[in-house]
């Protein structure tokens, strides 16, 4: 449990947690599994996990009876996580906890950074971490949500000399991926359960439900903790449509200077410049404020300064 401490210290950023690297992983050829937990929920972090062990000891991992984390209960997952800790002489793991604030900031960035790109970069970063630690990687197995072929090509190019296998449902096919999924899920559950609010909200009801937008408990919580101006505490992923829809309908409207850069760029451009064609034919049309003797000096327009004679 102490492993989640760095994230508890600052849950607004992305954070890496890791086990010690077993000595044997630095000398023997290893396999590595990658999986994620908490991709769908509107609440809490998304956690990426890697788990690795020598290829020669893959079978022993099977004997631990690791399985797809989704088929296990919370207690079973925690028990398996303990078991993996007992196997630390040959099993290593690392996690990247992407805070909901990191997810919101990335997805709502001026130059959009979507969840797939963020996921890929996180997975790549974790594999690189294992390599940097001297783990002799020969095989990598990845669970994927998007198209597997493209992702497999991408990873193979980045990590030449490593056999990369990307498969949907890899967490039920390869024990090393199951192990990674367990680590990720345990960390995600821990982070949500022990979420420390950075906001000064007093006692907050922690009955969020599963965090999935479809869960009535999650929905009720989102309705109850909506602030009209600030929206939500940082536990919530602001980039999720569930959160955005609620803020749009029950919060105050906020305009950003890049609001129009979204899909409807053409429409917005039209709205900004919705002059009739005919206006160009009338003598007075001209450039509006730019012409005439009342033109403001660039010193003022650059600074958005205006002379005030009334309020």
């Amino acid at each position, binding site marked *: 449990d102490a492993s989640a401490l760095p994230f508890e210290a600052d849950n*607004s950023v992305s954070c890496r947690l890791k086990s010690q690297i077993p000595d044997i992983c630095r000398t023997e050829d290893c396999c590595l599994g990658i999986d994620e937990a908490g991709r769908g929920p509107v609440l809490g972090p998304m956690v990426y996990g890697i788990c690795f062990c020598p290829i020669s000891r893959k079978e022993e991992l099977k004997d631990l009876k690791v399985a797809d984390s989704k088929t296990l209960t919370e207690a079973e997952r925690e028990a398996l996580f303990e078991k993996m800790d007992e196997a630390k002489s040959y099993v290593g793991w690392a996690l990247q906890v992407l805070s909901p*604030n990191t997810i*919101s*900031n990335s*997805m*709502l*960035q*001026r130059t959009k950074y979507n969840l797939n790109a963020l996921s890929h970069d996180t997975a790549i970063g974790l594999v690189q971490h294992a390599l940097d630690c001297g783990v002799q990687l020969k095989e990598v197995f990845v669970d994927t949500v998007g198209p597997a072929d493209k992702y497999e090509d991408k990873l193979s190019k980045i990590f030449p000399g490593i056999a990369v296998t990307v498969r949907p449902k890899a967490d039920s096919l390869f024990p090393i991926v199951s192990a990674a999924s367990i680590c990720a899920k345990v960390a995600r559950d821990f982070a949500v359960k022990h979420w420390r609010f*950075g*906001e*000064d*909200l007093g006692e907050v009801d922690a009955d969020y439900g599963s965090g999935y937008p479809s869960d009535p408990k999650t929905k009720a919580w989102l309705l109850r903790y909506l*602030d*009209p*101006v*600030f*929206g939500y*505490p*940082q536990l919530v*992923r*602001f*980039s999720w449509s569930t*959160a955005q829809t609620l*803020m749009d309908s029950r919060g*105050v*409207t*906020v*305009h*950003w*200077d*890049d609001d129009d850069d979204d899909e409807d760029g053409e429409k917005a451009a039209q709205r900004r410049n919705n002059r009739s064609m005919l206006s160009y034919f009338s003598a007075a049309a001209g450039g509006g404020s730019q012409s005439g003797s009342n033109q403001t000096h660039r*010193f003022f327009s*650059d*600074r*958005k*300064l*205006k*002379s*005030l*004679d*009334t*309020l």
Partner: protein
Amino acid sequence: MCSQLTHSPSNKVCFYTFKIPEFTSFICICYSMSNNTNVIHVQVSSVGDAQRVPVHLMPCEIEHNGPAQVSQYFHATTKDRKQEMTVSFRGRALRGQELCCPQGYTGVVLKETIKPGSDQEDRTVMVTSVFDKMTYWNLETLPNPDDRVVMAMDWTELSEAIHGPVED
């Protein structure tokens, strides 16, 4: 919020910029004001009661005039590390910096408590709070000297040079 600045060189009360002993002039951040009137009085006596408050210049327009849980949501999550301030608003990353009011100026927040009945009536605004620095926030970009609000502060110096008394 607007970053409009005026400067008054004399002692007389002209519109809303004027001199009183402690304050040479004002940076005005105003809200709930309408136009089309002749004289606007600033209730000088209200300055004494005015609270010193933290002021934030946001890189977005918030369609809200009124109280907000600024300290609970905003101040509580603001990170201030090595001169670099960061915070998120509505899930977007902001980067900020403190900006002092120009020398000799004090910022005031004005509020019109009694709306005039007609265009012809004089108007009275109260100073609800004062500030000598504010925090301005950029959307994602690092605060820099080219930011408009930083450059806007040049005006007071220029204004002084243009309108100030000519020395022999």
